[in-house]
């Protein structure tokens, strides 16, 4: 018989190992666009992916979902719940929003629809059906789940109840089990049951109808989003929806006239500060009340970018990109005042869209940028990698590598030292997924002709050995490592 003391010690060690493994990854979840409060695009360690095995990547499934043929984002990038113990079994679910105001829960193992929920348009404001590139209509904001990892005035998100325990009483939009939050085109916030897709509580109006809302981010029981441009005359603003009160309380920070925010949505610093990139400023807002904490002037920022928050040598930096293709590095500590200038900026690179970041095992912090246009030997586009380094007492971005040629690449996602980049395709060309060695940029995998349409520009998701994206024909794709069913 094993002595009890030895057994207990062994048990503790096993539990600690499991906890460490989970801590390095995300526990199998990708709860918001970009994966975390900083929208890093980095999954961390994924036991199913390595530089050696990624060559065996496969198209695991593709599924056509109902969407409207308008705009460049018919389907929004999935958010992932790694393990749901539902009344229908253990499930890994990918929640996908569609511009047809539908939220799908896709069984990520089987590639089948677990449930789908049409969010009925239900407000006195008539539904706008005419669309433009800037105001495509329909659901525009990637849904969110509760995102861990940032401090704030409301404390951490409520933990799920223990096995067999009754949930603690709380406001109706956060009490009980984990949920998916989505804002439909009528501006109402839905809290959806992850097992059924049913509204857990009556939806509430939180935004003007027919706005263009950016990807949602729920941190410390507050959902943040940005409306811009002024679709249906909705003001350009940052919004915070406080779920700790009934009904949820909406606060907004209006932008200056003519100022436009990127569509990728806000990011959250370690102390809960909300950062939003607009065409003119990098805004730092207080968590909760969205009071202006500080801002910095930007020179013609990218219209689609969200800022990026990264940690480097115990300091927090905000990274932004501008239309001229420069990457700007801001020291978060200096953003409390006004008009601070970037602590560093790169040479122009024709960067488009958001940035990504990850840290390797040696502690080197990397920034990855999608480049639309010539860079190095890549005539059409590429992924450019930078290292965050100290040079002469200054924090700078040092060019490290430029990938193979790609067409309109999306912001990449990273796991286990592998960068996944999607060449969206241009005109009639098809999208191509690449896996690159994150240290060198060397191509490790190409999907070649497995994808038959150009990619949606909504973004990519990576979780539990699978990379997700969608194409403009409303088809969701999942590439990953084969698992026998």
């Amino acid at each position, binding site marked *: 018989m*094993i002595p009890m003391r030895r057994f207990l010690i062994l048990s503790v060690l096993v539990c600690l190992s499991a906890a460490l493994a989970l801590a390095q990854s995300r526990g199998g979840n990708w709860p918001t666009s970009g994966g975390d409060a900083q929208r890093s695009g980095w999954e961390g360690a994924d036991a199913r992916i390595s530089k050696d095995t990624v060559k065996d990547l496969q198209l695991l499934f593709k599924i056509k979902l109902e969407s409207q043929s308008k705009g460049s984002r018919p389907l929004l990038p999935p958010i992932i719940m790694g393990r749901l113990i*539902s*009344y229908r*079994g253990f499930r890994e679910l990918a929640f996908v929003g569609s511009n047809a105001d539908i939220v799908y829960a896709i069984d990520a193992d089987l590639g089948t629809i677990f449930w789908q929920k049409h969010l009925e348009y239900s407000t006195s404001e008539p539904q706008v059906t005419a669309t433009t590139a800037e105001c495509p209509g329909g659901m525009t904001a990637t849904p969110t789940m509760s995102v861990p990892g940032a401090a704030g005035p409301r404390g951490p998100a409520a933990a*799920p109840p223990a*096995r067999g325990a009754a949930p603690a009483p709380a406001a109706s939009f956060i009490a009980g*089990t984990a949920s998916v939050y989505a804002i439909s085109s009528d501006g109402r916030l839905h809290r959806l049951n992850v097992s059924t897709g049913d509204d857990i509580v009556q939806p509430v109006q939180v935004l003007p109808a027919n706005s263009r809302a950016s990807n949602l981010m729920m941190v410390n029981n507050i959902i943040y989003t940005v409306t811009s441009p002024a679709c249906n005359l909705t003001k350009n603003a940052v919004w915070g929806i406080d779920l700790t009160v009934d009904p949820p309380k909406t606060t907004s920070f209006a932008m200056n006239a003519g100022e436009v925010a990127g569509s990728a949505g806000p990011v959250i610093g370690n102390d809960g500060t909300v950062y939003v990139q607009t065409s003119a400023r990098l805004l730092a807002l207080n968590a909760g009340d969205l009071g202006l904490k500080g801002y910095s002037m930007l020179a013609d920022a990218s219209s689609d970018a969200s800022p990026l928050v990264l940690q480097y040598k115990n300091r927090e930096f905000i990274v932004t990109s501008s239309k001229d293709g420069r990457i700007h590095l801001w020291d978060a500590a200096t953003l409390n005042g006004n008009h601070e200038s970037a602590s560093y900026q790169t040479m122009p690179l024709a960067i488009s869209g958001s940035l990504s970041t990850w840290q390797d095992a040696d502690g080197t912090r990397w920034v990855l940028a999608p480049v639309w246009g010539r860079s190095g030997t890549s005539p059409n586009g590429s992924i450019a990698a930078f290292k965050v380094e100290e040079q002469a007492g200054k924090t700078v971005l040092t060019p490290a590598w430029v990938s193979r040629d790609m067409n309109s690449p999306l912001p990449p996602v990273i796991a286990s030292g592998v960068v996944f980049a999607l060449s969206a395709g241009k005109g009639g060309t098809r999208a191509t997924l690449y896996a690159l060695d994150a240290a060198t940029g060397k191509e490790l995998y190409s999907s070649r002709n497995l994808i038959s349409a150009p990619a949606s520009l909504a973004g990519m998701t990576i979780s539990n050995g699978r990379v997700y994206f969608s194409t403009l024909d409303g088809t969701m794709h999942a590439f990953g490592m084969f*698992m*026998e069913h």
Partner: protein
Amino acid sequence: MRTLTSLFAITVFCAVLVGADWPTDGGNPQRTNWQRDETILRPDNVGNLKILWKLKFDNAPRQMHSLLPPLIIGQVRTSAGMKQIALVAGVSDNLYAIDADKGEILWKKHFEYPPPARNGGATDPLCPGGLTATPVIGPADASGARTAYVLAGNGQLHIINLATGDETASAVQFGYPNGKSYALNLWGSVVFTTTSQGCAGNPNQMWAVDVNDPAKKVMTFNPKSGGLWGRTGAAIDSTGIAWAPTGDGTYDLPTERYGNGLIGARVEGNELKFKDYYIPSNWAFLLKKDLDMQVTPAIFDYKGRELMVVGSKECRVYLLDPKSAGGADHQTPLFRTQQLCNEELNFAGTGIWGGMASWEDSKGTRWVLVPFWGPSHSEFKPPVSYGPVRRGAIVALKVETINGKLQLTPAWMSQDMDHGEPPVVANGVVYAYGSGEDTTQAYADRGLQDSSPLRIKASTHATLFALDAETGKTLYSSGDQITSFVHFGGLSIANGRVYLGTYDSVLYSFGLPVK
């Protein structure tokens, strides 16, 4: 008619005189659930089954557990003469010896011990604490006495004279308090059990102790999995290897982890040596979906070759060779069926649970009987069935050799029953029951909430069925005569009687009315 009645009475008398036994859960160490010595109950008379007696015990259920399957010894010499004894254990550390003919208690024992420091959760059905392992009865000794081995909830193995209830030797520490042991098995003088679910913080492993060993050394093998929770513990093959499913967990050779599989270990010297294993090739998927390998295998002879069947919540049946389970890579069974049920891939309320059965008919056909919960799989279409199966059923498979390869060929699927439980088979009749248990562990509005009070409230009642073993046709149903449900109980059969204990601590004895 009078002649027939007389013949029947003589048959009953002769059978009882010879005295068939059911000395262990599953009927034998191989866990075939086949009573080979039954002569009274037949396909042509089993339709007349009645409740001969029922007996309410003073055993308090713990969580959803109550009575374990009775063990039957046909001929026990007692101070009151020869008796057929049914030995029934109750989860609250009770042991009852019943005069099986009269339905009266001969003796009763209650195992007393200080409350263990560690318990399962307050409403957790997985870890009830108390006596959870069906006892086992050894062969008659030189004097004809029979010894029962009973594992109390404090982990002490008691050695008891079946005739008197007296302890004939000191108890042996054979596990941890509230460690949730499963049915004991006996091979020679070695008692085996398995533990699971880490109840009260205890390890999940296979256990063995040689009761003839003066040191009573406890031998274990730990596959580092979620738990060895085959309902009837380990099944033992002809070489003495004890086989047990490992529940869920990781399969990783470098760290010697054998989750989601089947392991075999044998006592050699005074060690329990790990001998072989089988891991389904889709184990990672099974782990992710919590589709445990949690069915005690059944081991049997097929045309002179020993074979083994095992299943899982995924609802496939694997045919294995105990000499090399899974072949060289330990992942290649002799045959794997399609999914019989659990199309939804749910971890609760569907799939194969508990154990299986196997028997051979007079023509030499070897049958495997598979119980399952939930709806049958839409693509599983056996040649004979009896209406849609929504809540559970029994499936019969034939072991066949086609083109030189072994396979399991579907023969029939029974009528629908509310959670089809492991059947027993005797004399051309399959006895099965729907447990009536509510097996809900997660809810649409709340998610996971595996709570005994909720499940007890939603449970109904068990129903006993007798099926024609050749065709699966229902020959008898107890309807609503049984008034409570069964959780992790089981059937026993011997000498014309079928026994089933229910949650309300009532033991039912079904048989033919004797005039």
